[in-house]
């Protein structure tokens, strides 16, 4: 039986993991490769490296980060943040990324999805959608959530799939950082509308939230960042909890 994936996201800036992290067990606080290795030992299914600055200098550091992580863990590795062109994607893939995550560029230049799917296969192309509730629907936002894309999340997810995306990474802007749980309703709406996997993101605060998004939210995978950095909710603890609640996970 296909298991539900648990994905750890590392926000990096100039080669260091950032975002409210307590690295009590790490010698080199904020080292992405070291953190990835710890996640691997704990049983993480996948790792996402998100370049939160996406400046030119940061881009060069990113390639080194990707390479360092890819040499330490043999798990699917996704790179996102500021991938605007085929060249950006190629640099990430050449450094060791298995998948690239497109966000703003996918909306402003949707043919990029198809170009990358043809070059690397759909399995290598994730379209990331940042969305929040709007009326009775879910609106899409771009540029790190600062600009209204005037698109509906469900409709955009369908288009992304038809253009060649292999997965959707759906982040609830309403829930992101709140630790109050994933937006299950929004996740279910998108997951039910497409035939490709949907990764739920935004709002993870406790193990119950993962159970909810895998059941009510119909998510295929769930992504979190800060919850895994703290010692109180480790990846292995989360998986044991899900296992006892009969959610199929890789143990």
């Amino acid at each position, binding site marked *: *039986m*296909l*298991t*539900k*994936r648990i994905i750890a996201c590392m926000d990096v800036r100039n080669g260091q993991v950032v975002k409210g992290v307590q690295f009590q067990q790490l010698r080199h606080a904020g080292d992405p490769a070291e953190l990835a290795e710890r996640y*691997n030992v704990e049983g993480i*299914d996948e790792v996402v490296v998100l370049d939160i600055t996406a400046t030119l200098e940061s881009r060069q550091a990113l390639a080194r980060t990707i390479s360092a992580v*890819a*040499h330490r*863990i*043999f*798990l*699917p590795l996704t790179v996102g943040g500021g991938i605007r062109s085929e060249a950006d994607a190629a640099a990430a*893939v*050449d450094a*060791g990324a*298995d998948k690239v995550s497109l966000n703003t560029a996918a909306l402003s230049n949707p043919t990029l999805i198809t170009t990358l799917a043809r070059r*690397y*296969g*759909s*399995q*290598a192309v994730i379209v990331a959608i940042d969305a929040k509730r709007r009326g009775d629907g879910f609106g899409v936002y771009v540029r790190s959530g600062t600009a209204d894309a005037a698109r509906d999340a469900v409709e955009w997810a369908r288009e992304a799939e038809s253009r060649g995306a*292999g*997965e959707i990474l759906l982040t609830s802007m309403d829930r992101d950082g709140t630790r109050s749980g994933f937006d299950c309703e929004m996740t279910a709406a998108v997951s039910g509308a497409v*035939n*490709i*996997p949907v990764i739920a993101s935004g709002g993870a605060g406790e193990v119950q939230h993962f159970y909810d998004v895998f059941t009510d939210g*119909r998510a*295929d*995978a769930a992504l979190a960042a800060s919850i895994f950095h703290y010692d109180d909710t480790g990846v292995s603890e989360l998986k044991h909890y899900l296992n006892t609640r009969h959610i199929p996970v*890789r*143990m």
Partner: protein
Amino acid sequence: MIALIDYGAGNLTSVRKALTALGADFSTPVRPEECARYCAVIVPGVGNFAATAALVGRWRDAIADTVHGGTPLLGICLGMQWLFEGSDEAPDVPGLGVLEGRVTRLRGNADAGLKIPHVGWNALDFRGDARILSGLAPQSHVYFTHSYAAPVTDACVAATTHGETFAAVVEHGNVFGVQFHPEKSGDAGLQILRNFLAVTQQRSLSTPRAEAGC
């Protein structure tokens, strides 16, 4: 030395990285006739079966010759599908045909949450002893990403179920194949690659001829 065949179907960085981590000697032959100089062949690949059209002709003949001569062959993902007679994904493109059967599209079931492509970690149901599965725990999880799959035949040594049951691992004499990505499947995947390397080493030890260049 292992021949890692690069026919433009996807990115080989991950496979190279895993082989390097395991201490394997490998290189990418530029011309088909070079295949005969290697003591093992790996055909990786992701994407559409049509991409294997690049192998039709001299590459296919050269790889078939080495396999028939006893050289171990490992097909990964699309490379495993290519071991069969052909695929519904590109019906006009012949596979290597060293294994019987055709590759077909997974049906899935959206209502039951069984999406296609089949992406993620799924379990291996062992179907008897196999060198390629040595040291692996039954029901080990490995990472898949594919929409087409090979049938369960006598060559199937581990099957996986996603709505329907398909061949996840095949082993037939010196021919091996994995539908998933061992280079992305953590410790279980590395063990499978290690097993293939062990088969390769046994072969080079038992082959008196130095001509293999192993």
